[in-house]
């Protein structure tokens, strides 16, 4: 792990009011966004939503095809935490959605120096599984997922 913070002083946004769910019961982007918005940033005690890493527009869902796509924007160009954030997203989605969903996690184009390699890494089943078996990494990811101050339940 790196010594010192990669982005020591990020811009923190206010949490917006939670939108009420639409009346229909089908899975939509808001559902997915609700599950991931409160994941904690690995570096800071703020949620990914507060740091504008994620927004509702960055999530797209196709329920018929069983496809979820999330695009996230790391706070700085050289953010080495991008992979950890991606891993958190993947684990959380795997836990909260049925296994038949295909989940694509991407870094927003142009927001990261090594965008391509990170995208590749995040969507490689083997490498994700291997990463989650690494106890240190797993601890870090679990911390991020655990401490999400989710208020929805």
């Amino acid at each position: 792990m790196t010594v010192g913070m990669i982005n020591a002083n990020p811009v923190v946004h206010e949490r917006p009011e939670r939108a009420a769910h639409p009346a229909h019961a089908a899975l939509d982007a808001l559902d997915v966004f609700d599950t991931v918005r409160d994941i904690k940033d690995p570096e800071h005690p703020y949620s990914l939503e507060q740091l504008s890493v994620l927004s509702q527009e960055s999530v797209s869902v196709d329920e018929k095809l069983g496809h979820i796509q999330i695009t996230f924007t790391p706070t700085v160009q050289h953010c080495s935490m991008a992979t950890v954030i991606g891993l958190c997203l993947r684990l959380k989605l795997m836990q909260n959605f049925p296994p038949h969903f295909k989940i694509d996690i991407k870094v927003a184009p142009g927001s990261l120096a090594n965008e391509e390699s990170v995208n590749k890494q995040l969507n490689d089943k083997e490498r994700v599984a291997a990463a989650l078996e690494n106890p240190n990494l797993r601890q870090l990811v679990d911390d991020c997922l655990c401490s999400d101050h989710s208020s929805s339940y």
Partner: protein
Amino acid sequence: MARVPAGDWVPHVEAFVDVSRSPAQHSAGVDALVALVNKDKLTLFDLVSKMDMYLTTTDHIVRARGIMLLGEIMSRISSKWLDVNAITTFSDFFISRLSDWQALRGALVGCLALLHRKLSVGTIMVANVKRLLEAFIHDVQVQSLAAADRKLCFEIFSCILDHYPEAVKTMDDELLYWICQSIDEEKDPECLKLSFHVVEVVMKLFPDPSGLADQFASDFFEILSKYFPVYFTHGAGDNLGVTRDELSRALMHAFCASPYFEPFAIPLLLDKLSSSLPLAKLDSLRYLDNCIQCYGADRMVAHASAIWFKLKEVLFSLSSDQLLSSGSPKDAENNKNEIISEAKHCLKTAVTYIHSSDRDIFINLILLDDDIVNNIHSVTTEENSICSSLQNQKQLQALGSVISILAESSTYLCTRVLQAHFKRLVDILGNSAGFDSQHLNIGNGSSPAAINYGALYLSVQMLSSCREVAVASREGFPAEESWWLILEEKLDQFIQLSGKLLTIDSQTIQSAVRKECVSYAVKGLLILATMPEQCSLVLANAYEDILLMLTSVITSKYEDAHLWRLSLKALTNIGSSAVEFGASKRETVYNRIVVDKIIRLTESCDASMPLNLRLEASFEVGTASVNYMLRVARSLEEAVITNISQVNGSIECVEYVICLIDCYCSRLLPWLFTSGGLNELALSFALRLWDEIGDLVTLDRIRSQGLLDSLMMGMKLLVGVCTEEQQSLIVQKACGIVSSKLSLPVNTMTHHLLSVEELVPAHSVEDTALVCMLSSVIVGLRPRTPLPEMIMIINLFSVFLLNGHIPAAHALASIFNKYVQNSDFSHENKLDKKLDVILGECFSIVLTSSSLKMSHSAAVTSDSANSDSLPGTGSIGSKFDILCGLAWIGKGLLMRGDEKVKEISLFLLKCLVLDQISANIPPHQEEHNDNLSSDASLATAAAGAFHVMMSDSEVCLNKKFHARIKFLYKQRFFSILMPIFLSKIKETPEMTTKLVMYRAFGHIISNAPVSAVITEAHQILLVMVDILAKLSMDIQDKDLVYSLLLVLSGMLMDEKGKECILENMNIIVSVLAQLVSYPHMMVVRETALQCFVAMSSFPHSKVYRMRPQVLQAAIKALDDKKRVVRQEAVRCRQTWQSSFA
């Protein structure tokens, strides 16, 4: 008194004095000695003389223990009487020991114990207290002591100040000097609280000018000021014995103790008000508020301008960014709001307390303040855009509250404020574009209605201040009040402007600004209309105008929901205020203008306005007073009656009447009942209804139009609220009409039951309707209401019951439940016999042509002579109804706790197993197959009958209808039937019969109290789970499945239930897993998942085996159709995954 020999108690003394013993032994020693002293078995003299050595030895440790022992004993015998000598001796001793610093603790404890003594048990003399004080000042260096000793010192001191002030009053400055010294630099919270108290009392003891307090005020304040604002982060859970609030309050009392603090305190508080710490701001404002009240106007006048400037800063320019806060933005916002409301409070105090010495002081300060003048100017010139920015709106609110605080404080101030601004504001309002009449008419003009919101807001604020002032000076309202003259001058203009605001076409401008404007216009009108009646001489016209305006909104502008509701609320408030102030003239006007118009709304069935709004308006206006409500009720009654009797059979009209009856019964009746205005109302309505029903043509129409159900329910409720005498009138009338109109030979019924086949052909539709209405009357009766011609009535209902009419069963159930009074039935047995006959008839009809009847011809013994020869009358459908009716009668008996209920429940049980019996007997008739199917459905109906018996009903037999309800009747029924069901279920091999049994038992379990079910959990849990599993196959049982699942989840929450569930974990988990994908009901799936979540807290060793199964079920549910279930599935999965990781 027998003394205890010294040898017995001296060891206790030794035990206490010996430091090497344990604390437990020490306290045991004291306990023993105290017990001896309290029982007079040991005199204090003996004790002291034996302890001589311990008290005087040169060994500090032993001496300290000795004195401590004496002090402890002293404090523990506080309720024992001691003579003057003893007390003087002890006080001499302890006072002398104060100089012994190595053994001080005991002396302090002893002194405190002496000071705490009550007058009735002998107290220390004042002279001794004075000596004690002197010794204290001379010998004790409080600051150098340990915290516990310091606390004792402060306790002694505050005790002296509170109880022996005369000893202190004669002291000189040495005392105050010593106090200063002692409390300086104190850090311990408990000591601090006491020391604040000491300062407070001391300062109050020396009130004379140029006295000690004046002299020492600066010293004391210098010490106190260090603690302000109290910063103390420990919560109540930290066991410090003090909370921040207590400390802060103690310090505040100290601050307020003496006006001599004023030159120091006010500058400090004003200074701290600029702090960015929210706590400091809040505390400063609170202290300031109290100090203003305590220091007096003369002293505060000098600070008035400083206070105003500081408060202005807080009120107008405080933003949550300026506050240091660790919490979320929401917390900061809350802090800010709290600070602002405290600042308003403080300003109000300042204005009320300080202006007594110079009444213009705040006029000059606030009203002529440049900022305020500019602010008013800018707020009232900016048009329309005023609401656009949040900042502006906040400024406006601050301005409004400052002005109304100022104006509310006195008549004089109110006048000055109005003089300065009111006229101009109304003029601005009038000139603003919104009231250009051309624009209004055209409607599509370029800038429709740019109302000056700021001017409107401020003028309404001023009006509300006027009302406050008027209410405060209610008696003797001089007409030459100058604020009133100003108001009067502009009154008509204001009312007109508001009225125009209300009538602007709502379609053209539908924005937030308009909403705000409209609500303030309505508020302004409301304020004017609720001004105390002293003003009414001048206001009479205005009052009428306002009422007309608001009423016309109600009648014509119902599309604009916001305006409509506001106006309705305002009208209700105006109405109730007229009643509250006892303004009879206004009440008349209100009646004439508002109530008349509103009532007319409900009088016809076709109007453009939606019916629910019309009814709501009527009800809301009625709630203003009982008299209005009575008028509304009468008009509804009239409308119902006319519409029933008129022959116009349109569907809308029927729905209209249904709505009217519903509104009357569900809203008006309960309201009138609770406010005690009911009287004859329900009676007359019920009688009039009967008059109408008496006409058979009307009755037929009612029935064919589907009005009957609604009328029946209405009749029940009407009868239910009547008194016994009123009820008997209704019953008499009803019986009279029924016996004259019914086409059946009613009179022959007085002696014996008619046989069923005799009646069937004559059974007309009108008769049925008539009997239904009669049954509604019977259902609502009170138990003590006399019922004439009871035999006839019972016979009549029996006949209709045997024809399968449920309302007849309701009436019979009510009669048997309440044991309605009748002179014919003075002997209870007679009614019981009647019941036997009816039950016998029912049983035999239900069983005719069923296989049970054939195989067990003697199953039913009946008194009725022709029961055996009954042909196969009664279709299958009516048999079900009879079963259901039986259940109702059973319910009535069950609720009263009658033994006869057993007969019915046994019969129902028999019906449950009918098809099993019929399957067992060999087929010897052709119709056997028909019988089989009919028996099966009969069994299903019997299962449903148990639901009727156990569940609560709105229709009949409830508290509203005065049913006799025995305590815990459901629990009793459950425990009687449970063993029977368990054994029958065990015996039954066939699945179909078992299913019916399950259904019946399920109804009983789900309606029984959960605690009763839990006590039997070990017996029924497995059956219950099996019921859940089997019933989940059929969509018809979904409600039953849900209620059973709720019982199961109730068990999960209970300790005993948990044990049982743990024993049968495997099967329960698999059934729940099955229910997680229950297709027919969403809540079942959700509850099943919640049960899983609850189970995850069970002991790990017991449930870890279930994990894969639970997780599998939860994962499946992640894909559920409903969002709630998906979320619950995620939670379930998380808890099971994390708690077993």
